């Protein structure tokens, strides 16, 4: 079998029963059946679990066995491909590798001498679309992506009925052979963006593309940044809206997510609910989110800087309150805040890896009971606890988890800098962050794009829908106008 497999993971050899059987030897779910049709022997192969046994019997085996006309193997093959087998999808296998790939994708392969036909007999067993778990909204649709890429494309087609919706399918991963679909709208999306996405996918030469991190890092080129360079969403409507905006979508088999690129900070700060509520409420909520971003990012660092290096900048009454709350606490403010930030991260990590019900209890015990006990035992000052908790809550108010995670990392970094050099360190850190964000691009679109233009307010204020006549010019859409 080893001699059949090439270094790139593909299979090479004659399309024979021996070779197909050899490729799947030892696979318990591999089914092989020998059939006699007239004077010829043909072989039927399928992988149990990926295919439907009933469909194979009814739509492949039965019509083949009912073909009693005499003729050569070549004629039998031709009739199976064009007439006798009334399966909706039948395609000739080009070679051994094509046959093996079709088999692992839920096709039934029938071997006629040294030619083979693959009939689609995929099983209907897959998770049905359910309501989004993270990006839930009150008014929006309740169909989230599933792990099956074909289900996802069908959901997308229901949101975007346009025939111009293009779905380019390819496989990535030498061994995982993960089906990846690039989605875009023809005549709207910049073809250069589509080509760039296709090129990046074609350049990925890895064993497997099975995790979200693998998709994000390999597709974006693994830039040294914690900030997401692709936006992911579990909502089909949001994905469809992204395509309508002129972005390129990516669907990966096995991941219940859709990826959108390019992405900028404005897109990451919008929530699915923004288009579900009136423009005033949506704008207010967006402003609140930017405020949350600022609080979540700098509040702990600001507190450390002010309390440790610049207490004179605090109003005396507030300073007095902080001093009184810290009077019996044995740790300096810096260790108190950094310790709390680390404890907060630990608590989050612990609650993620716990079952949902236990996770909630853990949050209550960790956050409320231990926090209150620590304050009462005068190990922590209430002020520090309030600051870290406020920053944590502000972080949760951000719509994108990847973006919030990146800010968590920078928050820790800014706090460390503030603990070393006060407001000077905090400002230096903020400048570093600004420089870092200014240098980031997603498919060559600047990360801070919405703020580098005169129309930057669009990222913060949600305009009235009838005024949103033009698509984001940073995406270079072929059709720049989206309404009359």
């Amino acid at each position, binding site marked *: 079998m080893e001699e059949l497999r090439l270094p790139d993971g593909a299979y090479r050899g004659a399309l024979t029963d021996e070779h197909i059987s050899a490729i799947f030897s030892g696979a318990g779910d591999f089914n092989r059946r020998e059939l006699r049709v007239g004077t010829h022997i043909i072989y039927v192969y399928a992988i149990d679990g990926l295919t439907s046994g009933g469909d194979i019997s009814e739509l492949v085996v039965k019509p083949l066995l009912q073909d009693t006309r005499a003729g050569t193997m070549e004629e039998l093959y031709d009739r199976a491909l064009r007439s006798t087998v009334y399966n909706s999808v039948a395609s000739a296998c080009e070679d051994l590798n094509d046959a093996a790939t079709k088999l692992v994708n839920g096709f039934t392969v029938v071997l006629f001498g040294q030619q083979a036909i693959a009939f689609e007999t995929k099983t209907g067993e897959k998770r049905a679309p359910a309501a989004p778990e993270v990006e839930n909204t009150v008014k929006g649709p309740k169909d989230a992506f599933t792990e099956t890429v074909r289900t996802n494309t069908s959901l997308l087609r229901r949101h975007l009925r346009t025939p111009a919706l293009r779905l380019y399918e390819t496989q990535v991963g030498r061994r995982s052979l993960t089906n990846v679909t690039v989605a875009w709208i023809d005549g709207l999306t910049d073809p250069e963006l589509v080509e760039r996405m296709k090129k990046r996918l074609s350049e990925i030469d890895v064993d497997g593309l099975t995790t979200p991190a693998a998709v994000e890092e390999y597709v974006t080129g693994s830039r040294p940044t914690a900030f997401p360079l692709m936006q992911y969403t579990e909502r089909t409507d949001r994905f469809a809206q992204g395509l309508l905006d002129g972005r390129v979508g990516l669907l990966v088999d096995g991941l219940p997510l859709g990826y959108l690129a390019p992405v900028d900070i404005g897109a990451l700060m919008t929530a699915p609910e923004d288009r579900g509520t009136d423009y005033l409420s949506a704008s207010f909520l967006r402003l609140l989110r930017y405020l949350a971003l600022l609080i979540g990012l700098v509040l702990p660092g600001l507190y450390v800087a002010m*309390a*440790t*290096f610049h*207490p*004179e900048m605090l109003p*005396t009454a507030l*300073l*007095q309150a*902080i*001093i009184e709350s*810290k*009077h*019996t*606490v044995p740790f*300096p*403010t810096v260790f108190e805040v950094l310790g709390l930030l680390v404890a907060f991260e630990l608590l989050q990590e612990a609650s993620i890896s716990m079952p949902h019900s236990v996770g909630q209890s853990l949050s209550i015990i960790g956050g409320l009971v231990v926090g209150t006990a620590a304050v009462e035992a005068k190990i922590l*000052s209430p002020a520090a606890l309030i600051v870290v908790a406020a920053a944590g809550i502000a972080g949760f108010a951000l719509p994108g988890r990847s973006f919030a995670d990146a800010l968590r990392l920078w928050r820790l970094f800014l706090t460390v*800098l503030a603990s*070393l*050099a*006060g407001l*000077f*360190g905090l400002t*230096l850190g903020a400048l570093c962050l600004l420089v870092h964000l200014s240098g980031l691009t997603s498919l060559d679109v600047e990360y801070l794009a919405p703020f580098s233009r005169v129309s930057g307010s669009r990222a913060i204020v949600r305009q009235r829908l009838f005024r949103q006549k033009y698509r984001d010019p940073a995406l270079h859409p072929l059709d720049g106008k989206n309404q009359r």
Partner: protein
Amino acid sequence: MKWLYLFAALVLTAVFGLPFRAYDTGKLLPVRTVQAARTARGVKLVSEIGQAEGESWTEAVAALREQAPGDVFFDTAEQLVVCAPSLLPEILRSGELRPAAQVYFAEELTDPEGLNEYLTAHKSELTVADLRYALLREGRL
């Protein structure tokens, strides 16, 4: 590796090279109202933290710092009550008080208890910054 060196240099500069002083917030004793008067010994300073005497304003401040149970913090002082105007150049030259602190003139020292609240309710138009400017113009600073 160069980033590591750069970060190490940044940390060392931040810790040892910058003119900042770190405070232990829990030990801070913020001063809100300072009274200064001339005595036979020199200068007497009275605040909510306590009182101290010295031959000069600087010495009185040092004495107050020495006897206080924590870190006396003058940067929060909101009011300065001066019983001897001749002390002003010395006080302003020391730079202990922030420019926005309000300045009052009094005949004699009073009980600091409740003084801050009283003076907050009766704001002065004169600040340390105004006086500093005036004295600088007169060439007395």
